[in-house]
Each structure stands twice: as structure tokens, then as C-alpha cells.
């Protein structure tokens, strides 16, 4: 068992454990904190699969931005026992159904996957930052540049809306 494999198992155990903790905690703040750990563990997996960019984006966007937003909302809402909404039987069934569908899709995907084509750890370079940069600055250079107009207009708009009159 090489070093990468040991890391893989550790990351997997952390990910699964904290994912279970996410759905079993009573306090939603703990859930979110465990969710952050899950995302970090999954980012570690991405690094193992040579997808550095995905790993970084996963940490910045999910762990950094979205979950912090989650925490803010949870703390601002000030959840407690009294304000807890009544649990609806129908909602329970609906969520179970939706979750079951997702499970079905995932199982089907695994079932139909060609295992022999799956690359091992540290193989393939499609997820490397340099590959992404090459695509971004050759094939997709025009949309990349034009996105700057979009951001510029959004920034001007934010200033116009946000400034005090």
C-alpha cells in the first residue's frame, strides 16, 4: 500500500464519517461545519485524481463562499425549538422519494460505467491548471475576454445601485 493509497483511505473515511455527521446532528450549525470538512476531504480526492483546479475551486466556492453564507443565514435566523416548523408527513415522503431517485441515478451510472476505462490515481492531465489555462487562452479566449464586459457592467451596476444618492 503506497502513500497515495493510504491518503485515499484516510480521506474517504473522513468524508463518509463527516457526511454522516452532517445528517445526524441536531444543531444545524454543527451540520454545516461537518459539511465543510466533507468538502475539504473531497477536495483532497480531487487532488489525488490530478484535478487541481477543481480542488481549489471546490474549496474556494463551496467551503469558502457558500457554506459561510449558510452559516450566516443560520445564525441570523436564530433557530430554536419554538420556531421549528411542523414536520410534514408529505414532505418526508417527498424528500425520501427525491433522495431515492438520486440514489437510483447514481447506482445506474456506476452500473453502466466501463470500469476498465477508469484511470488510476495520478493519471491523466485533463484537470491540471495548465491544461485548463491552455483551453481558456486558445480555444475559448474570445468568450473569456468577453466575460470581462459582463463583469464590468455588473460592477458598474453594483456601484450605481449601491451608492447613496
Amino acid at each position, binding site marked *: 500500500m503506497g502513500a497515495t493509497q493510504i491518503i485515499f483511505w484516510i480521506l474517504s473515511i473522513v468524508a463518509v464519517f463527516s457526511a454522516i455527521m452532517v445528517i445526524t446532528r441536531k444543531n444545524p450549525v454543527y451540520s454545516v461545519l461537518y459539511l465543510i470538512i466533507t468538502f475539504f476531504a473531497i477536495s483532497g480526492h480531487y487532488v489525488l485524481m490530478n484535478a487541481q483546479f477543481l480542488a481549489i475551486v471546490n474549496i474556494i466556492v463551496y467551503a469558502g463562499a457558500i457554506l459561510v453564507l449558510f452559516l450566516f443565514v443560520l445564525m441570523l435566523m436564530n433557530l430554536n425549538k419554538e420556531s421549528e416548523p411542523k414536520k410534514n408527513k408529505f414532505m418526508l415522503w417527498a424528500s425520501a422519494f427525491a433522495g431515492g431517485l438520486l440514489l437510483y441515478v447514481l447506482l445506474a451510472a456506476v452500473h453502466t460505467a466501463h470500469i476498465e476505462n477508469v484511470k488510476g490515481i495520478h493519471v491523466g492531465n485533463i484537470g491540471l491548471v495548465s491544461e485548463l489555462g491552455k483551453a481558456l487562452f486558445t480555444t475559448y479566449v474570445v468568450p473569456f475576454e468577453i466575460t470581462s464586459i459582463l463583469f464590468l*457592467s455588473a460592477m458598474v451596476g453594483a456601484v450605481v445601485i449601491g451608492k447613496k444618492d
Partner: protein
Amino acid sequence: MNLIIISALSGVVMMFSGLFVKNNRTISYIATALIIFLSLATMCELGAKSWFNIPQAEAMLRTSVYGKLIGVILTIATTFYFVLSGKDIERVGKHVADYYALMFFVLAGAGILLSFQNLLMLFLGVEILTIPLFILTGAQKQNLKSNEASLKYFLMGAFSTGIMLMGIVLIYGAMGSFDLSVIGKKAQFATPIHGANLMGLLLLLASMAFKVSAAPFHFWTPDVYDGAPTVFTSFMATIVKVAAVVAFIRLFEGSMEPFHTSKWQILVSILIACTLLVGNITAVFQQSVKRMLAYSSISQAGYMLFAVFAFNAFGKEGITIYGLSYSLATIGIFSVLSKMQDITFDGFNGLARQYPGIAFALTVFVLSLAGIPLTGGFLGKFYMISAGAASNSSYTWLFILAILCAAVSVYYYFRIIQAMYFKERVSDTPVFEVPVSKAFPILLIVVAALIILIGINPQILLQYLYF
């Protein structure tokens, strides 16, 4: 390419001029100079190469003669808009330079929509077209109605963009490419049509129908157009709408071959019929001219959609004439409306006695919108309906409906003429909030003359299509 690059740069220039120039009038002059330069630049591109040679852009943006001509029309309409409504833009709020900058960015988005060759660019173009509009809609920060309209537009726009992205993803999944020509080529051999592709096309159809405010996706239009500052309503209802219609045509033309069958025409004919009926019948009951024009813009979009129904050269010629005459007429009416105290029909009472020049020009605009012969609006409607008839003559009911709806529209458009010429002014309040300059009626009459010129001799415009 000229349109996209120069308008984006003009937007940046306007941003900086807001920093260094404190006088609002000067800012308007700078914007007018830039837009005149921009329209000259787009004209130079007609029948010639772009000033900017970007080989990488070939796969993403492919400008046809048609797209270039529409670009010229959009910039000319914007020029008239800046000249006629510059003073009203200055009165909206404090960030005049930023409003101009945002409008230049919208033009850049329109330029992308006129020439996109890749679904990625479609998405970017639609976003660049709409995000500045959310802000312009909410530009009157003290006005609750403006805030509400902005928020409503933002939520609905974000939702429709989400639907568009979903459609693009499904098409990518089915076809394996974002490139329109690749998708078109693959779709030709894929019979029966791939399920995911079909679903994606339907989602794209819904989101594009939302962007051009075709019924039943029109519910945001009256509220947003009514709540937005009147000057910006004018911009949204004309230039933006024409660009969106052209993008609609470009998206489905050629590249979506399997859809060109009778099934496509059934869908679009239902869309057109709903749009015409909803737009015209609801406009009849409006008391506010602004709201009436919002509904009339829905019905005018219905006529423009005939080009999407037909996909032939006739339809393209029609959009060219329709786009210019509709934009100019609506910009003219809005430029008067945004100066007025009372924006109901009663506000127009007795206008002809005090301002005969303005009343005359308004009459021409209204006649053009209603589609009375000798005006550009008539020829536009004529071309659109005959394009539909040329592509599939079995849809007689649709063409009759379109003509009947044009007849209905005469009623609500002519109420403006009736108010101006045949009603006495009761109150003593002045017609306009601010005194109009001497040049304003002359400019309006120039615009009116242009509309009549297109109506008499459309070839001065159409000849450029065959350069």
C-alpha cells in the same frame, strides 16, 4: 466585431468621463459623439472587413451581412435615442455617465447576439444584454415602483437564464458541441430527433420567448416597462427587443434543422397568435400611454416573430425594415412621453395647438406603429406577413389574425391622435415638465421623415443586404 469592441470601449470611456466631467450636459455630448462614431464604425464594416482582425474569434463570432446591417440599425436608433432623450437621461438620477456606460455595454451584448456562432456566446450575449437593464430599470432609487420593477425583472430574468442554460446543457449532451454549425450538421442526420436535443430546444425556445416577451412568457413586461424610468423603457422596448429577436432567429435558423418541419411552425404560430392577441387586446384597456406602449411592444414583437416562423430571406428583409421603423417610432413617442407631466391619454389633450411640430411627428410615429401605408411600419408588417405566407401558405388563420390585430391596434394608437387634435386642454398645467428646446420638434420631424422615407423606398436600406 467593430460594434462589440468599440461599444465596450465606449462604455469604459463613459465610466471614466463620469469621474472627470462634472457637468451632465457635457457627459451627454460625449456619449452622443461616441455613439455617432460607433454607428460610423458599424457602417464602415458593411461590405468590408472589420477593423479588428481576430482569427480566434472565427469559431465564436461570425458576422453575416445581415448581422452587420442590424448592427447599423441598432446604432442609428441609439444615436437618435441619445439625441432625443439625452436631457431625460440626465434627469433620472445622479450617475448619468454610468447610465450611458451601461447602455454602451448593452450595445456590446447586442453585437454579440447578432453574430454568435457558439451557444456559449449566446449565453454571454444575453447576460450582457440583460444585466445592465436590471440596473437601468432600478435607476430611480427613490421610486418604489422602479425598485419593484428592477427586482421583478432580475428574478424573472435570472430564472429564464437558468432555463436557457439548462437547454444549452441538454443540447450539448445530445450533440456534443456548443457550435451552432456542428449541431446543425449532426441534427440533419439524427432522425428521429434526439430526446435530449428536443427538450433542450424547447427550453431554449421558452427562454428566448421570454427575452422578446412573447406571450405566454410576457408577464414581466408590462410591470417592468411601467416601473422603469420612461427613458429607459424606450431603450428596452426598442433596441434591446430588436437585438433579442435577431438572436432568436439566428439561434434557430439553419442550426436547428430537424425543427424546421411543420412541428416548429405549429409551435411558433401558437406563440405568435398568443402574443398578438394578448398584446393588442390588453393594450385597448390601458389608460396610461406608457403601459399601452408596453403592451403594444408585446404585440409588435408578435409581428417580428413571423421571421422566426418563416426563416426565409423575406423575413430577414422584414426584420430590417420593421426593426428600424418600430425602433424609431417608439423612441420618438417615448422621448415626448418622458418629458410630459401626465402620461395618461389625457395628458396629450390639445397638444397640437401648443406644439404643432411635435404633434405632427407624433402622428407619423403612431401611424407607423399602427401600420398605415406610406410609413415604414406598414412595409414592415407587410413583409413579415408575406414572409409567413411565402414559407407556408396553409396558415391562413394566422395571417388573418395578424391583420385583424393590426386593425385593433389602430384603435388604441389613434387615441393619441384624437387626444392631440380633437380634445381641448382643460387644466392649466403645462404639458411638459421641463421646457422643450427649439431643436426638439425639428429633430422629431427628421425622425418622422426617415420613417416615411423607409416606407416609400425601402430599397435604400435593403440594398445593403445584398452587398
